């Protein structure tokens, strides 16, 4: 593994420094990127020792978080209703199917036009992708619940409210979390584009800005930072998911108990 990574980095260095290909020569080499990244006095103003670096991270994280939670709050209930109530699904499902083929990023201009200011627009497109992923996976989760669970609960005298609390939510939870992970990944994807098009701060913005200002090592620093933050956020969801779905862990972790 270490050999693989080291040799890839060396390859990158070699291609940039020693080959006669202009295409590679234009790229920043890994050494200068790392030097810039950990410099206390970075040439282009951004390193782990500068305040602005964290400001950009903070902006992006803030937007992604707001969008994610909006998607969670709206998407999960909507998905549950769609999965549970066929009539509701007939309305909402058709509308969703109708709007879904439009790639989320195509909403950027209209979002800027309709919403007051760029900030809500960026958050809106980020929200939109996360929302689709959350809703559809929640719907899938509810549909994947064994119908016998509903019947068993009915037999035992459960009301609709009981069924929602005791069957639908716990039954759909694993799929919901899968959906949330996908939603988080998709949110970062859109956020970067949104920030490039219409923002003044944030990692995505800075990537494009550094290009315009010919600060090439900073581009790579920002890309890597994005990768790290994105990875950390989905890891966080995975951990929370594992905690919340304890029964799954236990059911598969420990061996079968002996029978009497």
């Amino acid at each position: 593994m270490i050999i693989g990574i080291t040799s890839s980095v060396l390859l990158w260095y070699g291609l940039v420094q020693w080959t006669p290909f202009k295409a590679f020569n234009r790229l920043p080499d890994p050494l200068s990127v790392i030097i810039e990244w950990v410099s206390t006095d970075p040439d282009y103003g951004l390193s782990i020792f500068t305040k602005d670096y964290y400001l950009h991270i903070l902006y992006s994280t803030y937007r992604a978080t707001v969008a994610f939670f909006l998607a969670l709050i709206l998407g999960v209930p909507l998905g549950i209703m769609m999965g549970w109530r066929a009539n509701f699904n007939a309305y909402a499902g058709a509308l969703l199917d109708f709007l879904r083929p439009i790639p989320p990023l195509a909403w950027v201009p209209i979002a800027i036009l309709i919403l007051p200011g760029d900030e809500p627009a960026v958050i809106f497109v980020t929200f939109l992708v996360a929302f689709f992923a959350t809703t559809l996976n929640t719907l899938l989760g509810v549909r994947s619940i064994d119908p016998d669970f509903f019947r068993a609960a009915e037999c035992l005298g459960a009301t609709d409210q009981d069924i929602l609390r005791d069957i639908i939510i716990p039954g759909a939870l694993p799929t919901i979390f899968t959906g949330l992970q996908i939603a988080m990944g998709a949110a970062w994807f859109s956020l970067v584009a949104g920030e490039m098009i219409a923002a003044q701060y944030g990692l995505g913005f800075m990537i494009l800005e550094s290009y315009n200002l010919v600060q090439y090592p900073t581009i790579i620093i920002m890309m890597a930072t994005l990768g790290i933050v994105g990875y950390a956020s989905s890891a966080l969801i995975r951990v929370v998911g594992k905690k919340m779905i304890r029964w799954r862990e236990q059911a598969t972790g420990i061996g079968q108990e002996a029978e009497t």
Partner: protein
Amino acid sequence: MLKQLQSTLNWRGFVAIFGFFLIWYLACVLKLPGFAEMANPLEVIQMFVREYAHDDHYWLSWVTSFQRVLYGFLFAQLFGIPLGLLFGTNEKFRNLFFPVFELLRPIPPLAWVPMSILFWPTNESSIIFITFIGAFFIIVINVFDGVRDIKREHLWLALSLGAPRRVVFLRIMLPSVIPSIAVGMTLGIAITWDVVIAAEMIASDSGLGRLTWEGYVSSTPEVLVIGMISIGLAGYLSTKVVNTIESKMMPWRRVRR
């Protein structure tokens, strides 16, 4: 297919979609906050019929975007499938390079825009590269998962019947992976459109994404909406085409009861 048609054609679906357009129309006519400068659906249709339906420039945007999607998508298949197979079958190779792949994977495709522009000689090739990146990772992961999910019984059976390695690869492993390749294709085509549109807005002067963006910049919201609908339609059509190809790739799935 028929089932899908039935479900979208039910009257409740019509009501919902009609309601959507009605609200949009009313919001524009009543000049609700945010909708003061927005065009209503009727204006959009008028604009389309009057100025765009016969406009070569508009149809050229379709062609341009489709070309980019097609190239990005095809290159992603061309490189992604073999790499996924290699990861799945060759343990040494996997141990060496999978970590590198995993390091690069969380970087959103659009973050590659500047690097791509720097590296590639033409604007067109850099957009295609970004599109490629969008689909590439998904395809590799899907193929890799597909290889890992091959049923060992399927391999054992072939081995015990005396099949040589080449035959096992061609007639057992490859077909096993086809469904995963298909999943990668479906996901890939959707993401490719997403990436192309954004890349066009950020770094291009042509294509449907650009058209939409120009609608905004030039304060002609009708154009903006025409762009969006065109993109939606284009994405929908490509997905349908990809689905058709997939079902051709898996004749045994088509007949499933």
